[in-house]
């Protein structure tokens, strides 16, 4: 797989460079970061859940696929057709929970396929790269471009016609070497710092471990875990992606191992492991009722189902269900903070989904911490 994708990447880049042409989508390598939280790690890298995920029963009759195992047991190959396009997917399941899926097929087919997988299967989710991780990625190479995506209309707790109304909607795309300057201009501006949420960063990455500077990758990282790569080295691309994924996995696992709550018994004494997580809002939520109504409406992008119980105008608690994974978790929400009780067994990716979407739809400066105030999800 590595040789094939490296050759395709190289060939494409060389051709396009010599012809001074813009690349077409189907010439680019796409890598999707997929989290399969229903997977039992004791089963290792089994092809069974993958075969099920890519079956007609899940994907519908517009898709035909065949899943096979390569000579490398951690690499699965999915060949098939999405609508009228032939596709090949290479699934690196060396970590059975955090998959890397590579393909040169068109974004139209691939995006449709992954959207379908994620909405149909509760055990499959995309990753949610928060602002801080995208900023970190931008620092890992030469920062070549960015996308901003903020839409407050999703959580409309304010009157947008009012004199002090916040920014409703901010979208921007910028390609070029001024990306870092532009980002800083927005991030540190009093007027825009609350709305500067990265949806995408583009970097050129050269790995000293891989070889000289002629070996490079130019990768677009989207907040939903889709990475589009061009360049001369698949190995560089893999090195970069592995670095980013390692950070993401560590954050998810930390949430589950250190903060998920479990009542247990030790030597006859009842012990409570874990502690709630805190998301802090600055400035405070303007209208807590409207905010909670939207957040727990059960609809996208948060997909949290619950009925808030208001104990005062400034405090509510919610026993909610994450409709994506189908697990219950509890919340307490005040104007300046939200406490999340993640039960043991619930997926840490849920927290990343909530946190990242709050950055995209509420305030890009929301922060996460533990109960003692130590910052989390900082990367």
């Amino acid at each position, binding site marked *: 797989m590595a040789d094939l994708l490296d050759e395709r990447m190289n060939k494409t880049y060389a051709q396009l460079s010599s012809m001074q042409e813009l690349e077409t989508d189907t010439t680019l390598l796409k890598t999707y970061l997929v989290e399969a939280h229903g997977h039992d790690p004791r089963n290792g890298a089994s092809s069974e859940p993958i075969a099920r995920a890519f079956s007609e029963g899940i994907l519908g009759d517009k898709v035909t696929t065949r899943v096979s195992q390569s000579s490398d047991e951690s690499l699965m190959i999915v060949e098939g057709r999405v609508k009228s396009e032939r596709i090949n997917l290479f699934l690196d399941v060396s970590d059975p929970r955090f998959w890397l899926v590579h393909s040169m097929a068109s974004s139209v087919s691939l995006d449709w396929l992954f959207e379908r997988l994620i909405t149909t299967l509760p055990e499959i989710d995309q990753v949610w790269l928060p602002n801080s991780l995208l900023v970190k990625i931008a620092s890992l190479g030469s920062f070549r471009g960015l996308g901003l995506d903020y839409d407050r209309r999703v959580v409309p707790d304010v009157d947008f016609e009012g004199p002090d109304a916040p920014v409703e909607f901010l979208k921007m795309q910028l390609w070029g070497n001024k990306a870092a300057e532009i980002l800083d201009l927005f991030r540190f501006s009093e007027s825009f710092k609350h709305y500067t949420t990265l949806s995408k960063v583009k970097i050129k990455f050269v790995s000293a471990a891989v070889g000289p500077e002629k070996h490079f990758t130019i990768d677009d990282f989207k907040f939903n875990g889709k990475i589009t790569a061009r360049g001369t080295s698949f190995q560089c691309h893999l090195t970069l992606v592995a670095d980013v994924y390692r950070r993401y996995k560590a954050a998810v696992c930390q949430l589950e191992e250190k903060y998920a709550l479990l009542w247990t018994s030790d030597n006859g004494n009842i012990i409570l492991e874990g502690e709630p997580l805190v998301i802090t809002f600055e400035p405070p939520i303007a209208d807590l009722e409207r905010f909670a109504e939207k957040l727990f409406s059960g609809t996208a992008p948060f997909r949290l189902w619950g009925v808030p119980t208001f104990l005062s105008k400034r405090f509510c608690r919610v026993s909610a269900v994450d*409709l994506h994974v189908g697990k219950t978790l509890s919340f307490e929400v005040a104007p300046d903070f939200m406490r999340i009780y993640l039960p043991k067994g619930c997926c840490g990716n849920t927290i990343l989904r909530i946190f990242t979407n709050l950055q995209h739809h509420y305030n890009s400066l929301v922060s996460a911490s533990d109960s003692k105030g130590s910052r989390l999800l900082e990367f």
Partner: protein
Amino acid sequence: MMNLWIGLCKGAHGLPNDFINHGYCIRAIERTFANSDMNDVKPELIASSSSLGHTMLLEWKEGPNTVHDQLLRYSRVHTEDICDKALVPPSECKAHDVVVIGKLGFQERLELGLRNGGFPFPLLLVGQNNIQLAMNTFQRSQLNEIFQRGLTYEPDTVPMSYVPFDVDSAPDLVGESVIPKVLEYMHQRKSQVLLESLCHDVVPMYSLMGPDYKEQMRKKVKRVMRKASETKFSHYLKWNSEAKALTSTDTWDIVNNPISLSTDKRTQEYQRLRGLQSAFLQDLRSGQERLPF
């Protein structure tokens, strides 16, 4: 009160850090152990600190009165009982206090109970936004300092969900937890809700508690489930009177499950369920939904 003290010991946004700074942690909840006369005591919570070498046995009173016999039994708890029988590490129980906690409005009666029995236990009174030492002192000066000045907190920041409900909770609190768990079961495509499993899943510490506590919680959860299946959620849940012979516990069949619908219809059904839950909780609060038996 349980949630507040867990929050004070584990840390919670908006609560003071005094207990964390002194290294207190929760050692046991509702643990029964014998005093030096081999009579049982059962503090609501045991918190201890290795840095202060100190243990607190917390006993809270919802009402105005203390129970003389109970306090007498506490007075016969020696430090070695806490180490040997309540299993607190010796480094954390060089000294201990039985701490009586009550509401500010009942100060007079609570003080009288302690005074009449000659009990030296510190009495903490909980007001709207602080906890104050009202009578007697702790074995550790650090605690006297904290509670003599008053431990102040924002009422709207007190954690509520470590223990969402207990045997004394109103039915609506039970309903808040139970129905989302049923939705989780639906998501898992379960065909039945078994009372015993439900209790395990929604009652914190259920598996760790004694048979009496379990029985009380089962009754509490069952009442809410019966009411849910007979009223607002009758379209989804049906009590199966015959299944108990097989399942050994009260059982409800899931007769309609939104997860089996197409994506669009499922979304509509979730919205409908949300409306029903809101109405169900409202009815439980207003008492319109009279609970059976």
